[in-house]
């Protein structure tokens, strides 16, 4: 069956390109892999492909687009049809529109976000190689996450966007937040890999970014990330804690343009036969911040 493997890339708008590159290379610890026009391309040390993050200079912050990698070229055509059948318009983005990328299928989600599917992207490999590799590289800087992990977006019609990912793109829903009566969907966590979420939505204004999450191994790495962020005086949103949803260990902070980042560890393995876990609105504080058990204004309202 056609398969979307993972969230492969996200393109963020940044206000000051060089300041942002400095932050994403030295504080987050990604590696710059190329430049084209007003964009800088970056990858995490444990990723094989040319880039997972693109920073593009703009006069506002937020998400330009994000993309999922499919397993084969045939899958690209398959999902292109499925998306059209669902009622979304697709366009083909030609080869080398961006650095290192092959053709992509572009479409706009019911929540207004620009999304792409792609298969072809240049292979750069990992610093540790893939023959008798060491477990990690001595050359990394900063937080040095393994990879881009997921993004969380806001939107109004979460039921339709959830149905889109399930029906057109073969995703599953791992968790959801509903009103107490179960009528309204306030949060929707979706996966296509075996992670507790590859993509999530919470109720809010359309076309906005809540955060981009990077994968680190353990609670210790989340805590170490917090230390590094304090050394660089990066503004925090939320200091280390646990999520009820996904059970992940987490820390939230802001990039120099105000885009929220997360260092995320753990969470369970998700499989297609799991039931969707439901959190009701009255327990949302515990669902989001398991220890604090109440939401914060900045976390709920600061969006880019």
């Amino acid at each position, binding site marked *: 069956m056609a398969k979307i493997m993972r969230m492969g890339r996200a393109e963020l708008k940044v*206000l000051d390109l060089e300041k942002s590159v400095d932050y994403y290379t030295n504080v987050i610890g990604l590696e710059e892999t190329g430049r084209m026009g007003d964009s800088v391309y970056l990858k995490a040390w444990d990723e094989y492909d040319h880039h997972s993050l693109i920073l593009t200079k703009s006069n506002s912050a937020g998400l330009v687009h994000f993309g999922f990698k499919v397993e084969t070229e045939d899958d690209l055509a398959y999902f292109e049809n499925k998306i059209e059948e669902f009622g979304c318009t697709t366009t083909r983005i030609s080869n080398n529109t961006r650095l290192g990328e092959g053709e992509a299928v572009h479409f706009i989600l019911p929540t207004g976000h620009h999304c792409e599917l792609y298969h072809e992207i240049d292979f750069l490999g990992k610093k540790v190689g893939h023959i008798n590799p060491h477990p990690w590289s001595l050359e990394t800087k900063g937080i040095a996450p393994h990879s881009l992990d997921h993004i969380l977006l806001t939107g109004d019609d979460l039921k339709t966007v959830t149905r889109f990912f399930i029906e057109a793109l073969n995703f599953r829903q791992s968790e959801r937040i509903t009103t107490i009566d179960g009528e309204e969907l306030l949060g929707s966590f979706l996966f296509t890999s075996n992670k507790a979420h590859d993509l999530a939505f919470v109720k809010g204004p359309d076309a906005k970014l809540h955060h981009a999450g990077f994968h680190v191994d353990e609670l210790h790495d989340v805590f170490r990330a917090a230390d590094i962020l304090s050394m660089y005086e990066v503004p925090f949103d939320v200091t280390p804690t646990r999520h009820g949803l996904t059970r992940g260990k987490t820390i939230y902070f802001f990039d120099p343009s105000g*885009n929220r980042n997360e260092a995320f560890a753990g969470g369970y393995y998700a499989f297609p036969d799991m039931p969707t876990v439901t959190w009701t609105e009255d327990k949302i504080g515990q669902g989001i911040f398991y220890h604090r058990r109440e939401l914060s204004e*900045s976390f709920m309202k600061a969006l880019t």
Partner: protein
Amino acid sequence: MYKVTLKARGQQFEVSCPPNVTPLRAARDQFIPIPTGCQQGGCGMCKVKVLDGEYAQELVRSHDALSNEELENGYALACCMMPKSDLEIITLEDYEKRKNESNPANLAEIK
């Protein structure tokens, strides 16, 4: 040290603000509940209307958070502005509320 009068959450606060500190930082340091987001000029949560006083606004900021038009009309981002005199500022939320309350059409409806 400048005196910043901040109207927020339906209340009025007085904040002592050194010239090299943002009103947002000064307010938070004095436990005053100013709406706070990214603190990088990106999200616009700390947008205020400056009712009185001189200030310098950092111009590298998201134009979604603070447009050129807003900038010209005396709006500012409390996270990335510096006072140049005593200031009187009001959060966007309180300012909108105040505008609605002083709108005669709305007053008529309340009757």
